[in-house]
Structure formats: structure tokens, C-alpha cells
């Protein structure tokens, strides 16, 4: 399995570059397939709540674009002169919103893959010594994010249990207890770090992270994809969407193929291990 944070970092950059440089829907669809297949082998028994959030997030640009943008010639209908939403509602705006939503979905999916595959210990291990403290702080902060979200839900539920308002209007009332909870936890982490000698002197490394063949393969393939997409693009950068999309160029298809290397490697690895489990 691929483990090196640098390999995953370059892969994630290449996927995001591909998703945002050209908004071709065929290309975005293929990229989504690639990302989902890269995620599945590492998913284990994790919950898939992130995907629901990503899908909800993807709908937002569609709604905003169709309601606020008057771009395009393909008019769906025209609203009377109501402030903000009045005027022509176009198919072009729907398509542009959908494309932006898909790019956002891809972004969330890429970060889900990175969060699942990259271990904070590995990130800290590859950092240069001067960046060690900052790296540990970032690793802690990343570990903190889901706990903060859980604390928010717990406080929201507690208000519900006590018969208090829980809708969006209650958010300001939730922020103070959330802040207090977060600060208390941060202090606990601080105490733990202190009690375990953090920052007491020159630090050593228990197990330096080594490059494996799959790591190197993913790194090289992702770099090649990045070059094909960003450095030698067959199509110039164009943030606007063509209503009738063209078929992706061969170099774009090649780049998507290269980005599928993590999924292919994981599948081969599983096939290799399958007889042992039989």
C-alpha cells in the first residue's frame, strides 16, 4: 500500500490541478471515478459521512449560479424584475454551477483520500528538524478538527435535550460553549505534550519513513500527470464551460490514467494477498 505523504501530496495536487484547469465534465467524471477507486481500498470500516457533506456542498454552486448568474444564451425562463433573482435563468449558468460543484466534490474527495491514507506520524517524520514543532502542531490541529465537530454536535444535542432552540439561529449561543470545550481540550493536549517531554531538547526519530516501490511509482506517475496537465496543457486554461463539451485530449486521458496508479497498485496488492487469505 502507498504510505509516503509526499507521494500522496503530489497525487492530490495533480488531481486538483486537473479538476480546476479544465472544467470538461467528461474529464471531471473520470477524475471522480479515479479518486473514488483510490479511496475504497483504504476506507476500511470508516463511515461515509464525508461524501454526504461533499454532495451537499456540490449543490450549493448550482443553486448560487443558476439564481444569481445571467451568463449565457440558452434561456430556461425569465423571472420578473425581483431584486437579486429576477431576470433570465440560463442553462449555461446551471452547467457552470454543476461544473463548479463537481470540482468542489472532487476537492472534498481528494482530501478524504489524503486524510485516510496519510498518517500524522509520517508527516512529522519527513519534516526537516526546524519545522518539527510547527509540524506537530499542525498534526495536532488536524486531529483536533473532527473532535471539534463532534463537540459541536454534542453541544447542539445537549441544547436539544434541555429543550432549547437548535436551528441555525442558535449557532451564536453554541459558539461560546464550543470555544470553552475546545480550549479545555487544547489545554489537556498541552499538558500531555509537556508531561511527555515535548520540546525538552534535540529530538530523534524512531523509524524514518522509507520510500517503497509503490510510493515511488505513484510519485513519478503523479509528477508526469502534473506536467501533462499544468506544464504542457493541450487546452488553454478556461474557467468557463462549453455547453456541448468536447472529448478530452489524449494527453488529458493519459494524465487521468497516470492518476489511477494508486487505485491500480492497491488492487494488485489485494490480488497478491488474496491467495494468502484463502
Amino acid at each position, binding site marked *: 500500500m502507498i504510505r509516503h505523504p509526499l507521494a500522496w501530496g503530489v497525487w492530490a495536487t495533480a488531481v486538483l490541478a486537473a479538476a480546476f484547469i479544465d472544467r470538461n465534465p467528461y474529464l471531471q467524471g473520470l477524475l471522480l471515478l479515479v479518486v473514488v477507486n483510490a479511496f475504497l481500498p483504504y476506507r476500511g470500516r470508516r463511515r*461515509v459521512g464525508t461524501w454526504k457533506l461533499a454532495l451537499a456542498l456540490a449543490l450549493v454552486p448550482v443553486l448560487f449560479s443558476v439564481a444569481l448568474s445571467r451568463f449565457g444564451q440558452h434561456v430556461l425562463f425569465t423571472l420578473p424584475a425581483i431584486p437579486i433573482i429576477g431576470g433570465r435563468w440560463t442553462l449555461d449558468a446551471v452547467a457552470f454551477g454543476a461544473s463548479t460543484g463537481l470540482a468542489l466534490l472532487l476537492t472534498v474527495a481528494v482530501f478524504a483520500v489524503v486524510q485516510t491514507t496519510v498518517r500524522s506520524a509520517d508527516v512529522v517524520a519527513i519534516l526537516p528538524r526546524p519545522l518539527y514543532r510547527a509540524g506537530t502542531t499542525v498534526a495536532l490541529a488536524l*486531529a483536533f478538527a473532527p473532535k471539534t465537530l463532534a463537540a459541536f454536535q454534542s453541544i447542539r444535542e*445537549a441544547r436539544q*435535550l*434541555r429543550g432549547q432552540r437548535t436551528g441555525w439561529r442558535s449557532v451564536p449561543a453554541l459558539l461560546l460553549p464550543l470555544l470553552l470545550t475546545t480550549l479545555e481540550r487544547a489545554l489537556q493536549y498541552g*499538558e500531555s505534550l*509537556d508531561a511527555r517531554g515535548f520540546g525538552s531538547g534535540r529530538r530523534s526519530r524512531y523509524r524514518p519513513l522509507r520510500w517503497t516501490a509503490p510510493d515511488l511509482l505513484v510519485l513519478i506517475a503523479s509528477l508526469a500527470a502534473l506536467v501533462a496537465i499544468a506544464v504542457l496543457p493541450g487546452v488553454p486554461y478556461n474557467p468557463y464551460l462549453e455547453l456541448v463539451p468536447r472529448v478530452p485530449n489524449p494527453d488529458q486521458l493519459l494524465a487521468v490514467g497516470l492518476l489511477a496508479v494508486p487505485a491500480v497498485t492497491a488492487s494488485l496488492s489485494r490480488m497478491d494477498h488474496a491467495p494468502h487469505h484463502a
Partner: protein
Amino acid sequence: MPLITLDAVSYRYPEADRPALSDVTTTVEPGEVILLRGASGSGKSTLLRCLNGLVPHSTGGQFRGRVVVCGLDTREHPPRQLGIHIGFVFQHPEAQFVLEDVEAELAFGLENLGLARPLMRKRVEEVIDQVGINPLRRRRIGTLSGGERQRVAIAAALAMHPDALVLDEPTSQLDPQAAEDVLQVVLRLVAELGMTTVIAEHRVERIAPFVDRIWTLDGGVLRDQPPRVALAEGGARPPVVDLALRAGWTPIPLGLRDARVHAQRLPADPTPRPSPPRGEGDFRDGSGPIICRVDGLDHRYDTVPAVQGVSLTLCRGQVVALMGRNGSGKTTLLRLVAGLMRPQRGTVTHEGIAAYVPQDADSLLFAPTVHEELRGQSAEVVAPFAAWLHRYPRDLSSGERQQLAIALMGTRADLLLLDEPTRGLDPQVKRALTAYLRTRADAGAGILVATHDVEWAARTADRVLLMADGEIYADGAPGSVLSDSLVFATQISKLVGGGWLLPEEVPL
């Protein structure tokens, strides 16, 4: 020469109106095992944090006297330097893990010390064997159970080769078997390595036979006594000690092994356990009107079943204890009954108002003072909290916060659902909780309590449900369910059998 010296230590938290510790003077010799006990809010955690310098370096406040650890004065040396000498295990293990892999976590402290790689490897391997966590070494922390996490936390502290191990209620969140596993690890370290250990623990029955001295904190004042003297005086103590005091056994047995010698003198064939007297309107036997009906309940998280085919009825006037190991589905069942989650299959119906008090009572408290939290409550509810009214709720001890949350939620409820309400509570507060639940049940409420506390359940519950793998596999009176079980049995039941659960019940 003592390993740890506390010399006239007094400490007051910033803005506190009374000291948390008052003139504490004692020593710990190398290899000694000290049990620290005391009521909720008596200063146990504060005292333990003095030993590695977190008090006052991390907390501020007024500190007087001195604590010397391995020749280092904690006022002059920060916790990161004292961490080499004192291995500290916190009450909530998740609050001390920095990385997400077990092996990386074990090595984290060693890396901070700048040790050479071969030495680190050797220490990690040693500690994995000592604590018996080899199957866990490649696991992610997030996938571990509560007991496994606490064992990893002990191993991480131990890997630094500390001179002493300090544990702050390491089993407070664990089921009996997981707590037993963790305490066995501690006792093995004591026996095999002669590890100097200071442990704050409410489950004294498991640890009492192995301690050299008992520190009892009362309002910040420390009494340092031999175990038999301390336990005879009162406070948290094993049920066999209560039985011994009743029966006049000397010397007082500290554990089951010592007690068995004396127990041979008990009547060979004790009379059958009598049913508790029942008055008019007393529905402890479940004959009261049904308040909640659960029918064919199923719930799963992704592919993992949490509750499977659970059907039960709860009656007014009855206190029901729901027990089972960590992860057996207790909390999910309570949340489903409370209506906080929608069951994927089956139905839950109940009468009146249902109130659920979660394990983490902190989330229920968000006002600036206890007085504000209790606004609108009757004088009867407010009265027990009169001394705390001006205090900030989160400054209360965990036991005090739990009491406040239960009072807030339980007053108007017809169906009261409590999740681990005795966590961190001292015996006196537990008794008060028992009395409170009894009063509520007698007033017609139905009560379902998820708990790991076997002794408290035996004293409080009219009915016990045992749950495993999302299913209820035993349901009955405490006398039958808790005496049949190997894991969920009281100490007295293990000693005398015959369905007797509590020391005061045993015929002499």
C-alpha cells in the same frame, strides 16, 4: 532517600475561594504503591498534577511549599523535564494521544528525549511485552477500545523508563473486564519491576490488597495511613471490608483471597435471599404501569450492528440497570429510546417526557454560573447545590458536574435515561444518587441506567439487563443476574455466592 517528597504543599487555583490542597506533607519511597482516594472535588487530580509539575506550571495559581521528585524541585523544573522521572497517565486517554498509530505513540516520548534509534526500538519492544499489547502495535488509536487505549497510554508512559508511574483514575470509563485488564497491567508492573506507583482509583476493591499506603484527601487535607487503618475509617473501600467490619473479622481482609479464610466461618448454608419488603404503590418488581415499550429494535453503524432485535418494556417505579462491556450497544439503545436517533427497524413508544443524560455531562452545562443553570428549577432541586451557586459549572469536579446535570434533566422527566452516571463519583455521592433515583422511581418515573458499576447497580437497581453485541442476553432481578455472571458479579457474590450481593445483606 524518598523518591517523592511533598513538604507543606498548599495550592489554590486562580480565582478560587478556597485552597485545593492544604499543607500536604508526605513522602513516597522507591517501590511503594500508594492508593489515592477522596470525594469528588477533594483535590486528587490536583495532587497528582503536583507530582509532575503541571501544578503550578500549567495551571498558575498560588503554590506554597515544595515538591521534590528524584531530587528535582518541581518549582524550578518544568513538566517536560520532570516527565523523564514521572510517567503520567491521564483519566481520559484520548486527551493524551498525539499521533494516531500505537507504535508511533509509544515512541513519541522517546523521540522527545532524543534517544538513539536502537535504544528506542529496544524500549518499545520491552514495553509492548510488559503491557501485553503486541496485537495492537500496528493498530490506529481510533480503532482501539477504551481499555486498549488506557493500556497503550500506560505503555507510552512506561516506555520513558520513569522512576514512578502516576495514574489518575485510569479505569473510570471502563467496563469491569477492561478495568480488570488495565489494573492487572499495573499490578504486574508493581510485582515484576517494583515500579513506584501512585494511583487515584475509585474501584479500590481490586487494588487495595496490593497497596502499601493509602492517601485520603478530604477538602484538600491529606491523611497518609496504612491500608487497614484507612479502610476501617471509611471512604471508598472494598465491600469485603464492610462485611469484615460487620462480622468483626481481624485483621481486616483487603481482598477476596484474605476474606475467603474468614468467610468459612459464615453459615454453611445461608438462608435464601429474602425479597425486599413491598408496600402499597411500590412497583420495584415491575408490576407498575408500562411507561416505555421497545419492540424489535435494530440499528447499525454502516455495516456494524449496534442494537439487534431488542424488545423490552420499562415500568413506572422501577430502576433498571443496563450493563455490558464497552461497545456492546448500551449508549445506542439509550439514545434510540430517548428519540435522539431514529431506529432503522422496530419501534419505541413511551409516555410523558423522556430525559437523557449523556456520559459527558459537560455538554449539558453552558451557563456562566450554577445559579444560572438552575434558573427556573424548584427550591427542592436547587437546595443540594446551595454551596456552589456562584461557581462556574465547568470548574466543578467531574462528579459534581454529573450531579448537576442529572438534577437539571431529571426533575420533570417521566422516563429518565442515564448513561454512566456514577463515573467519577465517590461513595457518598453514589449513595445520594441512589436515593435520588429511588425517590424519582417512587414518584412514578421509569428509570433506565447504563452503568459499568456492578456494586452500585446491585445496590440501586430493581432489574438488570445484560447486553452484548447489540443484544440483551440476560434480564432479571439483580440477585439472579449479577450472581450468575463471572464478570458482572459483586465482590460479595464472588465471596459467599447464594445470591447475596451486598455486605449488609449477608446473614452472619
